[in-house]
């Protein structure tokens, strides 16, 4: 099988540095998701691994062997492209068969290989069609089949669900993890969709501007984002970010939210007196009765039912807008005055100037002196 290692890889185009001294290790059989906005260098990274472009500096190791100067056809990789990159002059069957032909397999082996992978991906009935006669979903499955057919130990998937409709994307998001796990291949998966990243990745590498900003399990990225930017990218609706200035009193360190002192527990000594941003996930906020401990008065502005959950936009007495999310069917307010309280555990504190998260552990919030 094949692990993948990148050591201090640099790639420049003219004066622009696209990948800046990037190092990364993907264990054998692991699925790593590269997540980030467009222009972050994700696709360039995949192409370097595939061998179709060369790094300016650094090394690429596949299965422990230095592949930096090895041509693409000898790297034993399967790759699916965002734009499918099907061969327009060949039928779907011939498209899928090309990696097997390169291995000089016999006709019967090719036929069996193509048909089994086509059956798996439910495109057996369109194998005789040329790409122009295929729907987007079928094109995407054909491209995926072509990447999978040779059972490559290392699979590179460049945002394969980008150009397919929402329904198919949802289906594939459910099917892909099993499909990839069955093959036992090492997978590098590029996406811009955080739900896809969370669903598919054993680990997620969050990239921006040619640098990996954070590398961790989906849980870690969601619960302990390295900075405001990452916290904002993961989560729907997006995290609430409020400017605060932590202070200290006899009971510890607290932040003031609408004149209610919310005490924080954790290693926040350094944050006292500094300009900070507190990040509160919408699902960590809930409606409470007036007079409940830690109740913050708000005005309901708007409510959006999203089938499985209801998102409410509320305004605090200081005029700051906050999103509150609750499962559908649970009590809440849809208009007028209300009170919300902050649930602990998922609230986050960031430095205002740098955007970096403060403290290494989960934030624990004490409600007005209540022990957490």
């Amino acid at each position, binding site marked *: 099988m094949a692990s993948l290692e990148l050591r201090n890889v640099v790639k420049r185009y003219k004066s622009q540095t696209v990948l800046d001294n990037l190092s990364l290790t993907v264990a054998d059989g692991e699925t790593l998701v590269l997540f980030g906005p467009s222009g972050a260098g994700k696709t360039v990274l995949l192409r370097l691994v595939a061998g179709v472009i060369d790094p300016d500096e650094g090394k690429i190791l596949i299965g422990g062997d230095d592949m930096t100067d090895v041509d693409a056809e000898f790297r034993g990789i399967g790759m699916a492209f965002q734009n499918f990159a099907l061969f327009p002059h060949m039928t779907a069957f011939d498209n899928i068969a090309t990696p097997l032909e*390169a291995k000089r397999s016999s006709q019967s082996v090719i036929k069996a290989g193509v048909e089994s992978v086509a059956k798996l991906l439910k495109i057996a009935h369109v194998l005789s069609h040329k790409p122009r006669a295929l729907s987007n979903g079928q094109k995407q499955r054909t491209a995926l089949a072509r990447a999978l057919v040779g059972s490559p130990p290392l699979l590179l998937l460049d945002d394969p669900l980008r150009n397919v409709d929402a329904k198919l994307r949802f289906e594939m998001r459910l099917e892909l993890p099993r499909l990839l796990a069955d093959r036992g291949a090492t997978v590098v998966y590029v996406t811009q969709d955080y739900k896809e990243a969370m669903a598919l990745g054993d680990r997620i590498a969050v990239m921006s501007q040619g640098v990996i900003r954070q590398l961790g399990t989906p849980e870690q990225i969601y619960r302990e984002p390295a900075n405001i930017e990452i916290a904002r990218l993961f989560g729907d609706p997006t995290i609430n970010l409020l400017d605060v200035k932590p202070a200290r009193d006899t009971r510890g360190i607290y932040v003031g939210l609408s004149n209610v002192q919310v005490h924080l527990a954790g290693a926040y000594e350094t944050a006292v007196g500094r300009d900070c941003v507190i990040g509160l996930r919408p699902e960590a906020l809930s409606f409470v009765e007036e007079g409940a401990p830690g109740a913050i008065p708000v005005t309901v502005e708007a409510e959006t039912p999203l089938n499985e959950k209801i998102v409410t936009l509320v305004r605090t007495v200081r005029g700051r807008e906050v999103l509150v999310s609750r499962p559908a069917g649970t009590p809440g307010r849809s208009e007028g005055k209300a009170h919300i309280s902050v649930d602990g555990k998922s609230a986050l504190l960031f430095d205002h100037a740098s955007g970096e998260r403060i403290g290494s552990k989960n934030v624990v919030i004490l409600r007005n002196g209540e022990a957490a």
Partner: protein
Amino acid sequence: MEHTSLLERILRGVALTLVVVFFMFPIAWIFMMSFQTNETILRIPPQLIFEPTLANYTALITGKLVTAAGTLDIAFMRNLWNSVFLSVTSVAVSLLLGVPAAYAFARHKFRGSEDIAFTLLSFKFAPALLVLLPLTLYFQKLGLANTYIGLIWVYQLICLPLILWIVRGYFEDIPADIEYAYRIGGHSWFATFRKIALPLAGPGIAAAGLLAFIFAWNNFVFALVLASADKQPVTVGALAFITSSGIQYGQISAAIVLSITPTLALALYAQRYLVEGLSLGAVKG
């Protein structure tokens, strides 16, 4: 298609007829002339009704031109063969050299690649007459004057830049990802060139080859200066019809009809590839 009224269709038909008549008239007139004798051709006013004769064609094919001054030998069939041989070989050599070069220029940006490509194109800028004199002198020194090899070499000035620049554009239009996908699948760059790039640029190569063929076929100046009677193509050979006893319009017309037939046939045959090339664009990306 929107609904069109009867009037619109009639007007469109009239307009199309006018255009076709305007462009086809000279060819049609020459075709008619080729079946007439010099006397009927030169009659004033010209007449649409005449007694057709195959004398012009027999004269060309047998190679005997009977005039008032006596019988002349005409090497027309030999000229026609020369034209076919020179054009086909030149285009073949150009395709062999030009298509791989076009691929290299399209896919690999190496030092000076743009300069080399432009230099090749610049061969087409200089008027042929400007390079002919030095070329003739060199060819005489090298022993290339009045040889097929020498002529085919000079014809590369006409064919190679054309093929190179047209085909390069077609290669550039193929998304690089398609070629990457084939290589990652385990194929060498040469296999990728043969199995992916060539078939996808096929219509472009056909179009460029056809154009180059027509240019080579129609060439006059190079062949006039560098080739003597037995190596001359039809363009130069047609001069023989200007005889001491007058210009043989009938034979000239028949010669034109015979000499445009191969290019016309080739164009009609290649048409379906050209159309295919246009529709192939729909599946890109």
